[in-house]
C-alpha cells in the first residue's frame, strides 16, 4: 500500500483515538460510551452529551477482563471490557449498552458493577419487527430519553432531537460519499484508510465528525492515483470489526477491500432516519427496521429458502453488484450467536449470487493473524485465477 500524505493524515488521527473525547471531558462536557450500532446516538447528542464508541484492541492480550468475564463471551466484547476495566476509557461519564446479543445482555451487570462510571443504561431493543415492536421500542426510547434528561439535568426538546437527526443523516451521507470513492478500480480510497477514517469519526462529536469526513473526502478526491495495486475486489461481511488488521492484511496480500456489511460500516452508516414527523417514531423505525442485523428476526415471507435469504441478505448482493466485488470474506467471531447461526444460510446465499466466499472464525487476538494470513492469501490465489 502506498503511504502518501492522505494516508498519514488519516492514520495520525486514528492513532489519537479518544484524545478529543478526553479533551472535551476536561472542558466539562459529559462523554457517554456505547457499544454496538443499536444505541440511538441522536438521543445522546440531543441531550448535550457526546457519544463515544468503546473499542477493543486486538493487539492487547485480554488479562484483567478475564478475571470477571467468562471466556465464552464474544472475544471482541471481552476486549472492550478488558480495556474499560483497565481504565483506558476513564474519561467516560457513563455507558449505554443495547440488547444486541447474549454477550451484551448477560454481562450487563458485570459492566455496571465493575466500572466506575456514574451512569449506565440498557436499551432493550425488540427481537422481532412488528407494529407492536415499534410501539414498544418508542416507549423504550422515551425511557432512554428520560434517563438522559435525569443525567444532564435538562429536558431534551423535540427540536434538539430533530437537529441531531439531521446531523447524523449528514454524517451518513458523507460516509456514503467515501464509499463512492472506492468504486474506481483500483479504488481511490483503500479499505484500511476507510476503516481508520470511520473509526476517527466515531470518536468525535457528530458536528466535528462531519468536518472530519469533509476533510477526508477533499483529500482523497485530490488524489491522482489509487494507493493500492489493482487486485481482487473484496467485500467484508460480518459484525462489528473495530480493528483494521483484517482489512490491512487483505490489502497487504494484494486484495482491494471495496465494500462491507459490518456494523461500524454500511450496516450502521447507510440507513438514514426520517426527518419529518415524530422524531422518536422515526428513530424507532430506523434502528429497529433499517439496521439489518441478524439479531432482529424477520419472518420468512417467501415460504422458500431462496426467497428467505434473498430478503435477509439482499444488501450483500446489492453491494456486491454496486462495488463490483470479486469475492467476500465472512468474518465471524467465535461465540457470536447472531452471526454464527447464519453461516450456513450466508454460505448458500453467496453460492446463489455466484460470489466466492471465505469464512473466517476469529478470536480477536493478534496471535491469530498469522493463521488468517495463509487462509486469506490462499483465498486470493483461489479467486485471482
Amino acid at each position, binding site marked *: 500500500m502506498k503511504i502518501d500524505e492522505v494516508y498519514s493524515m488519516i492514520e495520525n488521527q486514528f492513532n489519537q483515538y479518544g484524545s478529543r473525547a478526553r479533551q472535551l471531558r476536561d472542558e466539562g462536557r459529559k462523554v457517554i460510551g456505547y457499544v454496538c450500532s443499536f444505541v440511538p446516538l441522536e438521543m445522546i447528542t440531543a441531550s448535550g452529551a457526546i457519544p463515544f464508541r468503546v473499542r477493543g484492541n486486538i493487539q492487547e492480550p485480554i488479562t484483567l477482563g478475564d478475571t470477571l468475564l467468562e471466556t465464552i463471551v464474544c472475544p471482541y466484547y471481552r476486549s472492550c471490557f478488558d480495556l474499560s476495566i483497565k481504565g483506558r476509557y476513564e474519561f467516560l461519564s457513563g455507558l449505554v449498552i443495547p440488547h444486541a446479543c447474549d454477550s451484551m445482555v448477560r454481562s450487563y451487570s458485570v459492566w455496571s458493577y465493575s466500572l466506575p462510571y456514574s451512569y449506565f443504561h440498557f436499551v432493550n431493543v425488540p427481537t422481532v419487527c412488528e407494529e407492536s415492536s415499534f410501539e414498544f421500542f418508542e416507549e423504550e426510547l422515551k425511557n432512554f430519553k428520560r434517563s438522559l434528561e435525569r443525567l444532564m439535568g435538562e429536558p431534551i426538546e423535540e427540536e434538539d432531537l430533530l437537529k441531531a437527526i439531521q446531523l447524523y443523516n449528514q454524517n451518513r451521507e458523507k460516509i456514503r460519499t467515501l464509499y463512492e470513492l472506492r468504486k474506481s478500480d483500483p479504488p481511490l480510497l483503500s479499505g484500511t484508510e476507510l476503516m481508520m477514517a470511520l473509526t476517527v469519526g466515531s470518536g468525535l462529536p457528530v458536528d466535528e465528525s462531519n468536518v472530519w469526513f469533509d476533510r477526508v473526502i477533499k483529500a482523497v478526491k485530490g488524489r491522482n492515483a489509487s494507493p493500492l495495486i489493482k487486485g481482487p475486489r473484496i467485500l467484508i461481511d460480518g459484525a462489528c470489526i473495530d480493528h483494521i488488521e483484517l482489512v490491512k492484511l487483505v490489502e497487504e496480500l494484494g486484495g482491494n477491500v471495496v465494500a462491507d456489511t459490518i456494523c461500524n460500516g454500511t450496516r450502521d452508516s447507510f440507513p438514514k432516519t426520517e426527518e419529518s414527523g415524530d422524531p422518536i417514531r422515526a428513530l424507532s423505525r430506523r434502528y429497529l427496521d433499517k439496521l439489518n442485523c441478524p439479531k432482529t428476526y424477520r419472518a420468512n415471507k417467501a415460504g422458500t429458502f431462496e426467497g428467505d435469504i434473498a430478503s435477509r441478505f439482499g444488501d450483500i448482493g446489492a453491494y456486491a453488484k454496486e462495488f463490483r466485488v470479486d469475492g467476500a470474506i465472512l468474518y465471524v467471531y467465535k461465540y457470536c450467536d447472531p452471526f454464527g447461526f447464519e453461516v450456513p444460510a450466508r454460505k448458500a446465499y453467496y453460492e446463489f449470487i455466484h460470489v466466492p466466499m471465505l469464512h473466517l472464525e476469529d478470536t480477536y487476538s493478534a496471535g491469530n493473524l498469522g493463521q488468517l494470513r*495463509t*487462509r486469506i492469501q*490462499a483465498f486470493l*490465489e*483461489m479467486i485471482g485465477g
Partner: protein
Amino acid sequence: MTKVVILKDGILTFVIGPTGPEQRRLANKVMEEALKKARLPFSEIQYIVSTGYGRINVPFSDRQVTEITCHAKGVSYLIPEARTIIDIGGQDSKGIKIDRSGKVLDFVMNDKCAAGSGRFIEVIADTLGISLKEVGELSLQSRHPAKISNICTIWAQQEVAASLAQGVPLSDLLAGIHSSLAERIGRMVSRLKIEKEIVVTGGGGKNRGLLRALSEVLGEKLIVPEEPLITGALGAALIAREMVEGAKRDKMVLKTKERQLEEIEIL
C-alpha cells in the same frame, strides 16, 4: 521438513531435508543438495516459488505461494482425478477441494491446536520412544483401541504415559491416538462436501495406521501419491514453470532474485 523439487519436463530431482528453527539456512542447504543431485548450476534455475509455513524465509525465492494452492497443483498433476486433498503435516492439517484443472474451489485448515495436526502423533510417538515409521504399523495390530479422552496434545501425552504404566497395550494406545486424530481431521474436512478421489498428502500419508483410521471415519477409500511429502514443492515448481511459460508467451521478462546461496547463522 524442507523439500525441494526441480522441474524440467518432468520431475528432475527432489530432496527432502530436515526442518528446524533455522529455516533460512536449511532452505539454502537443501537447495544446494538438490542442485548437486541434479548436477545443475544454480544459474540454470529459471524461476523459484517457495511455499509452506516458512515460505517467507526462503532468501532466494522469486515468489511466495501458499501451500494450499501448491498442493492443489501438485496433486492434480500426479493424480488428475483427485477432487479432495487432505494434507496432514506437522504444522497443520488441511482439506482442499479442487477441480480437474487443479484449481482450488474451497479449503479448510486447522492450525490453532496441535491436536488436529500430524504433530499430535509425533509428540506421542516421541514420549513412547517409538519412531514415526513404526507407530502406524503398531497401531494396526490393536484389538481394542483405547479411548483417548484428552484433546490437548500434552494432556493426551500424559494420559497415554499413564495408561501405558497401567498396562494398556501399546498398540491399543496408538490405535486410540490415530482414531482420535482421524476423527478430528474428519470433522474438519466434512465441512467441505467431500468428493472422490480423495488424496492424502504430507507426513500423514506415510502413516498406514492413520490412513486406515481416517478412511474408516470418512467411509471412503483414500489415495496416497508415491511421495506424499513433495506435492507442495512440486506444485510450487509447476507454478514457477507456468509463470516462465506465461512470460515467454507475453514476451515479458520475469524479475528473479540473484541466484546465490548464502550461509546464514541464526542460532
